[in-house]
């Protein structure tokens, strides 16, 4: 049973990690919590669903993920153009970013509600059997797919940030955009890149969460809270910290729910978040975002 709970917790953590990283990467550079990410995940889940539904015989899920991620990038760039660019140009305080992202998130969810109502839509079944046996354990194929995709994407992202020149530029802009500019880095382009990556992650998350939980307007919003908590516990803006915290959060939630019931789980989660804020505000990563990505 303990091993089964651990596997389920890791699977849940993989879902949280995907969301948390989309959250953390924007925070790392722009220093604001991009709540629009939840709305984008919902929108991408619908885009992926309608892309699949437009074919008589649905294309492989990887094609849907690729198309939806591309759509997510375009969507993110569109949002940047209409909501954030002017804030950047005017060098407005971060609170404006936060308010804009919150507004966008509510706007997207409300529009989805108007056009599609709250009714859940379902992606076609991906597997003929939803689980496979691993000894005495039952493992969800969907969870394993989410875990595998998350690990690959998160590893690629970590490599990009830590081992490439672009990543170096991202880290430089994260620390100080003005100084980066003086050193020849186009901080505007880096910010656009960050939004593109967040859009890409929203596309991947939208399809995977849609496959697992169904597609409805609040899908991203409800998951966003957990992503935010994970990124906060991990150390706001730290990708590695967010990933680690997401998996830890998933496992703790699973064991807590099993032991004490689901109703007390949100209490535990928020107490955990408060504890980190009081005792270790820099999070698991140990360093504030302003110092390092």
């Amino acid at each position, binding site marked *: 049973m303990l091993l089964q709970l651990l596997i389920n917790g890791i699977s849940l953590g993989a879902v949280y990690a995907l969301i948390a990283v989309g959250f953390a990467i924007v925070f790392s550079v722009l220093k604001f919590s991009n709540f629009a990410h939840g709305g984008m995940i919902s929108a991408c889940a619908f885009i992926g669903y309608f892309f699949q539904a437009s074919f008589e015989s649905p294309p492989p899920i990887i094609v849907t993920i690729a198309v939806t991620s591309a759509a997510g990038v375009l969507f993110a760039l569109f949002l940047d153009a209409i909501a954030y660019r002017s804030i950047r140009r005017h060098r407005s305080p971060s609170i404006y970013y936060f308010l804009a992202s919150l507004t966008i998130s509510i706007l997207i969810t409300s529009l989805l509600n108007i056009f599609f109502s*709250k009714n859940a839509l379902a992606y076609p*079944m991906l597997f003929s059997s939803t689980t496979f046996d691993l000894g005495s354990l039952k493992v969800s194929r969907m969870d394993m797919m989410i875990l595998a995709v998350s690990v690959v994407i998160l590893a690629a992202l970590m490599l990009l940030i830590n081992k490439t020149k672009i990543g170096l530029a991202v880290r430089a802009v994260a620390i100080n955009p003005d100084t980066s500019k003086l050193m020849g880095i186009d901080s505007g382009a880096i910010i656009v890149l960050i939004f593109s990556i967040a859009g890409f992650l929203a596309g991947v998350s939208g399809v995977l969460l849609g496959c697992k939980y169904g597609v409805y307007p609040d899908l991203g919003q409800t998951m966003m*809270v957990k992503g935010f908590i994970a990124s906060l516990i991990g150390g706001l803006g730290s990708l590695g910290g967010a990933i680690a915290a997401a998996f830890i959060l998933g496992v703790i939630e699973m064991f807590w729910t099993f032991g004490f019931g689901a109703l007390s789980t949100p209490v535990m989660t928020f107490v955990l978040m408060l504890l980190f804020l009081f005792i270790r505000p820099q999070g698991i990563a140990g360093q504030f975002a302003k110092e390092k990505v």
Partner: protein
Amino acid sequence: MKRVLTMVIAMMAISLALFAGGSAEESDPNAPIKIGSIQDLSGSASNAGQPNAWGAEYAVKVINENGGINGRMLEIYTEDCKNDITEGLNCYNRLVGEIGVCAIIGPALSNPASAWVELSAEDEIPIVGHFMDEVCTTNPDTGETYPFMFLCEPSCSQQAEDLAEYAIRELGKSRFAVLYNPSNAFAKAQVDPFVAYVQERGCELVASETFGWSDKDYSAQALKIVASGADCVFLGDYLAQMLIAYDALRDAGYTGTIVGANTMAPPFADQVKNDVYDVYFLQNYDMLNPDVGNINELVTKHMEETGTTSPQVNVGFGWDAVMVLAEAMKKAEDPTNGAEVAELISQTTDLELSGGITLTINEQHRTDTMGMYIATYDENGEMIIVGYEKVD
């Protein structure tokens, strides 16, 4: 000063003339009868509210095509309460205060309806609907019946008891578990009487697991249910939660029977990830049977007109509520007199509804003459009716 006085008198005269004009229109014995319909057209219960509204509007259309209420046409004004109590109150005030309706067709959900119990009595506005929580028709503290609230289907506890009885007697189950959201009034109003009934019948409740609105993973709860050795699990939430709960149970290795509320009806079987087997759920109608009542005709017409891909039970709810109201209005001397119409609704006896079953309203303004169908899915995922249950 004289000019001002003249203007004031002129305005008062105009107001009086307008007011007098309005009165004349309202007292016109041939004027259309205005009724309201408050439904969850958007929000978390729109999948129930939209077909409900369609059914009510279609019933009005059919009644008017057949001569209306003793020659007077019905006019229906539909408002969206979004499964929200405040919105519901706004809808009620708009319909009664601004439009001047004389009766209201209520939503299928109890949350908004429960807020109108006092208002409907003050304004003498009969409200007929499928708000199945008993608190909408009976004061839970005093046991008194709300005089203007009427329920046209078995209440929550009646439905839960019908299902529990079927599970015990027909399916032979004795070790029960429940998995539900206690914050969802719809689920709680069914789970509590279900549990009470199975325990009264000597069965065991081996697990009672819960989840919250924001939870998306019920696998820990499902594992506990598997470990409890339950042979039957009751699910009583809305469709989105039912899908996650069903898949969590099957993914956790639960192979026993799953019974549930009417939200397990199509498109449930098309949307779950696991194979659907050994599930039994409540249904108000034998919707797919063209030989009973006109429910099959209604759901087919609804699917044709709206492009909905699966038959929607709420179409029948909207239709039935209008028919109950219209039947009373036809008998009334003044069909716009709320008190008279309410009195006649309370005397409804053996009125055949769209499902072919007859309705008699009892002293609590509910019905104890109706039972519930028990449905399941065949190997092709098609819904089939396997029984009809009515606990006395």
